Structure formats: C-alpha cells, structure tokens
C-alpha cells in the first residue's frame, strides 16, 4: 500500500515536471528596446515592428473617464487615438492593431477615482484614466500611475504647446505623471434681464471687475436691490455639496492662500476664510442666498433657479453654458426644455469672480483634468513582462495622439471646457473647421462620430465658440487648488463650515474656530495644515 502511494506521488511529480518540459521550449523575445525620438510616426513604426516580431498582432487597452454628458471625448479621444495609430501601422505595412476593449465613463469624477483606487491594485483598473489633477499626487505617490517624465523629453515640442500652468498641474514632486486633457474657468454669471429691471448697468463691468473696482460688496449691493425690488427671488445662487472648487475661490478673492510651497503644507488662512464665511453668512441672513443651498437639488432647484431668471448672480463654470442647452432645466412654459444658444447669449452676462474687497484681485479657479496612464498599462497583453516598456511607451504615444489639437478642440467646443493646447485654441476660432465639425465632416472614426453626433448638433455653433473665445482670458487669473493628498479632507471641513454659517447655526467667527478645531482634532491633518493669521477685528461687510 505504501509502495503504491510512493509510486503515485512519483508519477504526479514526473507529470508536473514533464508538463513544464513538453513543448516548453522558451518563447524567445526579440529585441524589445525602443528609444523614443520625438517623430511619432517613426516611433510608432518602431514599436509596431517590435510587437510584430514578438508575435503580438493585437494590443488591448481600456479607457476610464468621468464627467458631464458632454465630456465623453475624455474617453473617445483615446478611441480616436487608437484608430489613428492603427492607420499609421497599416500604412507602413505593420500587422498590429490596437483594440479599445472598454470605454468606462461615469458621471461622478469622485466615484470614478474611488473605483480606480480600489481596482488598480487588483489589476482591474483602466489602462488610461482621465480625472482631476487633484487626485494625481495620491495616485503618483502610491505608484498607481506611470511617471512619463523621460518619455515626454523626446516630445518637448508637443509639451511646449500646452499652457505651462496645465503642465505644472500634471506634475508631482517635479515629475510628469500625465498630459492635460481640459480645463475651465468659473465665471460669475449675471442675468441681464434682472439687472435691467434694477438699473444695474453691465456695460464695461468686466473691465471694472478686472481692475478690482467691482468687489463682493457691490455684488451684495445689487443682489439686495434685486431682492428688495422684487426683480428676483434670490440675489445669488452657488454650488451645493463640496466647497471645492467653486467656493474656495473666495479665499483667493480675499487675497488668501491655501498652500505654502515653502513648507509643503496646506494653509488655513484665517483672515481670508473668515471674510469668505462672513460674506456667505451676510447673504444668507439677508435672504439673498438660500440658507439650505448646500443641500439643494442640482437638476430640480439650482439650475432651474438660474435659467428661469429667479436669481441675479450665479457662481458657475464655463461648462454651464452648454449644459443649459443640452439639459432640460427650463420649465417656465410648462414642458421642460434646454435653452437655445441665442437665449443663453442674450440672458447671461459673465465676468471673473470679483475681488473680495478693494485692493484685492479678481480670480477664477481651474480644475484641469489629466490623462494618466496606469502603471500596469497593457498588463493583459501577451508577453507583458518582456514587453512592458514597449507597451508603456505605446500608451504614452496614444496620449500624445489623443492630445492632437483637433481632438482637444472638439472636446472644448462640445463641452464648453477650455482647450489646454495653444494649437487647439486657434482651431476653435476657425469658422471653416467649426462648420466641418457641425457636419461631422472630420477625420474621425465612425464610433466616435456616432457617440458625439447628438452633442455636436446641440452645441456646435458660432455663439458657443465665441463664448469659449471670450472666456479664455480668464485663465490669466486662474488659481489651482493645491494638489495635496490631504486637501480633500480640508475642503470637506470648509464645506461643513459654509453649511453651518448659511443655516445660521454658527457665526462666521464660530465657524472659523470650528474649522481650526476640526483640523486639530485629526493628528494627521494637523501635521499637514498650518493655521495662519487671526480673525480681523472690526472688519465690515459690505464696504463702501
């Protein structure tokens, strides 16, 4: 019995060894080193040849993105890049093809980030990931995205065409971890019809705002007048939920800061935060701003209040411009509908976010979205271990292709985001190109055309293009919220403080102390945040 068992074990061991040997002649890997030269066709051909020599005829990638319904080019840009690369390979007789296996696109960028975070370690996250630059430091720090600094050196001419602030937003610790995809400004929208009723002259207002002559005290004055005279139900409407990024603008508008580059720490700038909370408190106490707005419904309350002219001012984003045209927020005639481009143009004035008080500067805030590459990109493809560097370089070249000026410009026009490349900015001013886009008479894959056809019909017109051209100057005034792993936690605390002052649960002074208490209550947050300055004595709002 024992002898039989020994024989059986020996047989199993032999079987295991044999199965590893039979047909186990090691698959040879041909030369797998490719040097990027900066000539994209040449580099792609080189990569294509290496893949072909190694028996790889199909490369699979997936693209993950998020955002409003008009921003689908965040993933279809990758699809289009794959098609363009496949064409280059076909033209050069290379029998390799890129297949985009998944275009995962969800509405909430925070949810998309959480999903990426939990699935990346398991190797189940998308190969390409477009999301806010605010998450880039954490992803880079955890080793979840690819450092493309060295790859980008070969493509310096393309990198130089991006606006420098956008490239800076794509860096962490001095290294480049992605390429900018889009950005935006956050104008202060003003209803022209309400302004007219109360004698608020909007001519030349944007110049006054630029010079810091029109401040938040003036916003308060006109908001109060609109309310008192019954011209509008509300003086001001702003975002709900997180205080990031729209409301954070107040800190910059009052000359404050959120980050200290010398220490690398976040900052609670007490005077600026106090003034911000005082403004919110004052507006809410006067009934000019709904005291429960932080829990308003976006689709049923916030946007309808703006598009139906029930508020004089609104703190919004450039993307509102096309969102109001594609979403059915306007229900005054009974049946909800989107606004016509002419209506948006005729009803809304827009300017920078005004200075907090005289002596301060107007601001806007951008939250660039960045195309990042998974540090495990291409792992489901053949011979990944041997060809890892080739797959990663190919992924980088796909980002370069997806950043082609026309792809970037299409995204900007249909989603009312601002272009991140100078070449794309030129393109959106080109009337012929706009007409071609309207007719979808561009060199795009059928898949992409089919997916953007409706959005193009609703949004591509000279009015929207003109709007983008008109607001692009705002980028000169832009601020970026700090790319710090602890920033989301601090922004959450700001949101709670704003909610409490709006509801009248706390005075601005109590709310500032609440923020300080909350920061100090978490040892890790306390270590990463500096509390600077004191609550100003005898500060009054409104002034003048």
């Amino acid at each position, binding site marked *: 019995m024992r002898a039989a068992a020994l024989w059986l074990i020996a047989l199993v061991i032999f079987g295991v060894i044999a199965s590893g040997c039979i047909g186990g002649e090691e698959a040879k890997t041909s030369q797998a080193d490719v040097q990027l030269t900066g000539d994209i066709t040449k580099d792609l051909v080189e990569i294509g040849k290496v893949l072909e020599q190694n028996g790889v005829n199909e490369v699979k990638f997936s693209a993950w993105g998020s955002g409003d319904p008009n921003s689908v080019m965040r993933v279809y840009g990758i699809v289009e890049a794959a098609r363009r690369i496949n064409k280059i390979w076909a033209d050069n007789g290379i029998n390799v093809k890129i297949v985009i296996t998944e275009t995962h696109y969800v509405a909430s960028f*925070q949810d998309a*980030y*959480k999903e990426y*975070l*939990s699935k*990346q*370690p398991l190797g189940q996250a998308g190969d390409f990931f477009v999301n806010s630059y*605010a*998450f880039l430091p*954490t992803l880079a720090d*955890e*080793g*979840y995205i690819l450092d493309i600094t060295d790859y980008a050196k070969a493509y310096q001419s393309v990198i130089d065409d991006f606006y420098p602030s956008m490239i800076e937003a794509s860096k962490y610790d001095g290294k480049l971890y992605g390429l900018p995809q889009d950005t935006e400004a956050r104008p202060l929208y003003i209803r022209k019809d309400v302004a007219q009723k109360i004698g608020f002259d909007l001519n030349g207002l944007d110049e006054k705002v630029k010079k810091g002559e029109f401040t938040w005290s003036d916003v308060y004055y006109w908001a109060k007048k609109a309310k008192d005279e019954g011209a509008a139900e509300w003086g001001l409407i702003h975002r*709900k*939920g997180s205080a990031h990024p729209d409301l954070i603008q107040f800190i910059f508008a009052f000359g404050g800061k959120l980050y200290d580059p010398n220490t690398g720490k976040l900052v609670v700038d007490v005077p600026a935060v106090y003034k911000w909370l005082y403004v919110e408190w004052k507006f809410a106490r006067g009934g000019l701003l709904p005291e*429960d707005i*932080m*829990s*308003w*419904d976006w689709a*049923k*309350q916030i946007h309808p209040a703006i598009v139906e002219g029930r508020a004089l001012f609104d703190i919004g984003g450039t993307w509102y411009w096309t969102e109001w045209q594609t979403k059915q927020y306007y229900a005054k005639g009974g049946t909800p509908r989107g606004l016509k481009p002419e209506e948006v143009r005729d009803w809304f004035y827009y300017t920078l976010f005004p200075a907090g008080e005289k002596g301060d500067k107007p601001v806007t805030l951008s939250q660039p979205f960045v195309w990042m590459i998974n540090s495990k990109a291409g792992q489901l493809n053949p011979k990944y271990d041997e060809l890892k560097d080739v797959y990663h370089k190919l992924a980088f070249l796909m980002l370069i292709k997806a950043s082609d000026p026309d792809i970037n410009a299409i995204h900007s026009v249909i989603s009312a985001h601002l272009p991140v490349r100078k070449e794309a900015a030129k393109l959106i001013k080109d009337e012929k190109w706009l007409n071609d886009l309207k007719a979808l008479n561009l060199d795009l894959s059928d898949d992409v055309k089919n997916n953007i056809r409706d959005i193009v019909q609703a949004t591509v017109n000279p009015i929207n293009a003109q709007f983008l051209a008109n607001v692009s100057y705002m980028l000169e005034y832009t601020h970026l919220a700090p790319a710090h*792993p*602890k*920033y*989301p*936690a601090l922004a*959450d605390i700001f949101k*709670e403080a704003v909610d409490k002052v709006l*509801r009248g*649960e706390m005075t601005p002074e109590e709310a500032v102390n*609440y923020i300080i*208490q*909350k920061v*100090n*209550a*978490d*040892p*890790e947050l306390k270590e990463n945040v500096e509390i600077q300055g004191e609550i100003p004595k005898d500060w009054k709002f409104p002034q003048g």
Partner: protein
Amino acid sequence: MTKGKLRDLSFFLSPMVLMVFLFYLVPLVMTIYISMTRMRNWNVDRYLTEFVGLYNYERLFYMFQHDPTFKAVILTTVVFVGITLMINVFGGLALALATFFINERPASSYRLLWLLPRMSPIAVYSLVWYYFFHGSEIGTLNSILMSLGLISEPIPWGQVTPWGAWSVIIFVNGLVGVSFGMIVFTSALNQIPKELVIAARVDGASSWQISRRILIPMIKWHLLYVLTWQFLSLLTTYPHLFLLVQWDLVNRDYGTTLALYVFNTAFGRGEQDQGLAAAAAVILSIIGILGGFVTLKVLKFERMMKKPRGDF
C-alpha cells in the same frame, strides 16, 4: 466522549466550523491586523507590512476627545441603534399580534405591505424618502403641509440637528427592519395551539389580555432572538444611511453612525484610510460582542439552551 462519537461530530460540524473559520475568524484577525498597519488607498503591497502598533487606535481616541463630528457619530450610533431597535422589535411584535387577530387574507396582504420596503432596491427606496423628506418645497412632506396651511416655510427635516436628522434615519431604517420581527413573530404565533386562545376567549379574555398573558410569554425566545439579531444588524448597517447622507438629505454629523464612519473612512473619501477604518471596525466589533453578550445574559439565554428533560 467516545472516539466514534467525536468522529461523527467532527464530520457533521466540519462544514460549519470551516465556514466560521473562513468567513468570521479570518476576516476578524485580518481586520485586527490591518488596524495596526498604515494601510491606505488599497496599497496592500506597500503598507501591509508597515506595522504601527496602536497608532490608529490612538488617533481614534484623540478624535473622540477633540472632534465634534466624531462625538456626534458616537452619539448618533447610540440613539439610532437604541430607538430603531425598539421600533423593529416592538413594531414587529405589534404588527404580528395585530394580524394574528384578524382574518388570514387581509392579514397576509397587510404583512406583504410591510415587506415592500425590504423588497425595494435600496437606491430606489432611499430616493423615495429623499424626495419625501427633502427640505425644500420640492419635498413631498413639505408641499403637503404647506398646501394644508400647516406651515408657511418648508422645513429642512434632515438638517434640524440632532433630532430632525435622527428622526429621518430612524424612520427610514425602522420601516425596513420592522418586517423581520413581524415575520419571525407571526411564524411563532402560528405555532401556538389555537385551543389556548379559544379557551381564553371563552373565559372572556380580551385581545390585549390574551397577548400579554398567553402569546407574548410563549414567544419569549423569539423575542430574544429578534432583539439580539436586530441589535447586531443595526450596529453594522449603513447602506440607507450612506445614501441619505451622500445626497445631503440629512446632516452629515448626525446622520452618520459608526458603521457608516467605518465605510466612509475605508472606501468613501478622497483619501481612503483602511488602517483607521479597521481600528474603528474592531471597536465596533467589540461593542457588538459585548452588547450581544449582555443581551443574552440579561434575558437568560442559557435557560433556552439547557438540555431538554426528555429521554437521552
């Protein structure tokens, strides 16, 4: 115990022992271990071996001392579990008794009605209450009260702290949980010989007297089971709360229980801190074990478990 009996016992018990080991003990040990690491952002490779001892527990204790939000979370947990538990147990009992005394057909329909919240998908069910309790005029409750002239301004129900927020989360979860007790008690009541009830009726006992003197004493162990089960369940429940807080219907501080805090810390924020969440989960488990133990002791669970006096 003979060798043969031990072998038989091992054979029959092994599936359950294996299940308990795999699905209870291993996760518990893993949670305790993770609570002593700096694990965050799911980076297992990097942090699993970064042992920090009791650091996460110290952080929690420090936050408990200094963070008003964390204090609110603890208080909310106590109030939410306490009151919802009473609603679930006694509400379930009341429903079971009420349907016991009426005809079977309407009783079944009525019971089915109470099962609807449990059968509805969580998101749909929560959305219904989101719009019902919404703090503006778009909220169903506000619009009804305003049209009846009972209030002139909408009331932000979930944002009135602490009782407004607590009332909403207790109401929504109470409606879901009450059906569990109802089913268990109905089933137990149906096992009671009808002769006892008929005899009591003949003697002129009222429904209340029958319930108090006959029915409730006879389903005592079921009451104990539902009480313990629901206590542990409520201590760890969070999906409905998560949505109501996420949608800003209820105040974040007074709508978050410790279970939701654990979830949000581990999965729900920009910076996901699994180490800290695991520490909070361990504390939650200790509370659960202690609470369950006390409940069983107070209600003398061992009496039910004692050997029957039959022939053995």
